[in-house]
């Protein structure tokens, strides 16, 4: 799909993503950005570390984008995920769509982030002052 922009990057470039989403046939653009927050369950996070199985992650993100364009009428789809060490307030993931109408924008954008979190082979380690934990690894 030429209107899909999928990538694993060192740094999320929100301005570049927005530029990609601009589209003459779209009346709405919806974007969700996941950022590092300072506290998880009241514990202070120093940083997050992301690791990806890059070829497979891109495959899966591409499939998710295609599923979204089948479910909704979308003109552009972007999914970018960052890898490496990310500090508090930094962006770790961005998903966005443009569409003629805002219903499709919101629903598709929500689908992209929810599905990415379930399926894309990327792993997050939370680094605290006294330990580090691979998120979701254990029950």
């Amino acid at each position, binding site marked *: 799909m030429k209107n899909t922009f999928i990538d694993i990057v060192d740094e999320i470039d929100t301005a570049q993503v927005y530029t990609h989403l601009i589209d003459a046939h779209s009346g709405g653009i919806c974007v969700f950005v*996941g950022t590092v927050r300072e506290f998880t369950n009241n514990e202070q996070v120093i940083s997050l570390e*992301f*690791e*990806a*199985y890059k*070829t*497979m*992650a891109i*495959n899966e993100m591409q499939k998710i984008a295609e599923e979204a364009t089948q479910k909704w009428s979308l003109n552009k789809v972007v999914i970018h*995920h960052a890898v490496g060490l990310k500090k508090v307030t930094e962006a*770790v*993931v961005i998903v966005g769509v443009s569409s003629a109408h805002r219903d499709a924008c919101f629903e598709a954008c929500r689908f992209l*982030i929810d599905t*990415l*979190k*379930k*399926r*894309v*082979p*990327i*792993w*997050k*380690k939370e680094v605290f002052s006294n330990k580090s934990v*691979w*998120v*979701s*690894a*254990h*029950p």
Partner: protein
Amino acid sequence: MKLLLFGIAKDIIGGSVFELPSGSKHPKNVLELKHILVQLFPEFAKLSSFAVAVNSQYAHDDEALQINDEIAIIPPVSGG
């Protein structure tokens, strides 16, 4: 047979690639590979779950494994 390792799987085994012991019988499918891993590294049994990818695609338990496949261990994902 070589396995790519990510996330906590890398910590459990201690490296980003693991070669199955050459003396052992090669697993014929995904389920057999999972059993071998749990036997060699009991920590895998403590994970919420783990999947196997063959050539960059999620594989079912009954998917056959070929010697030249790119095989990866996929512990619970946590992107986003």
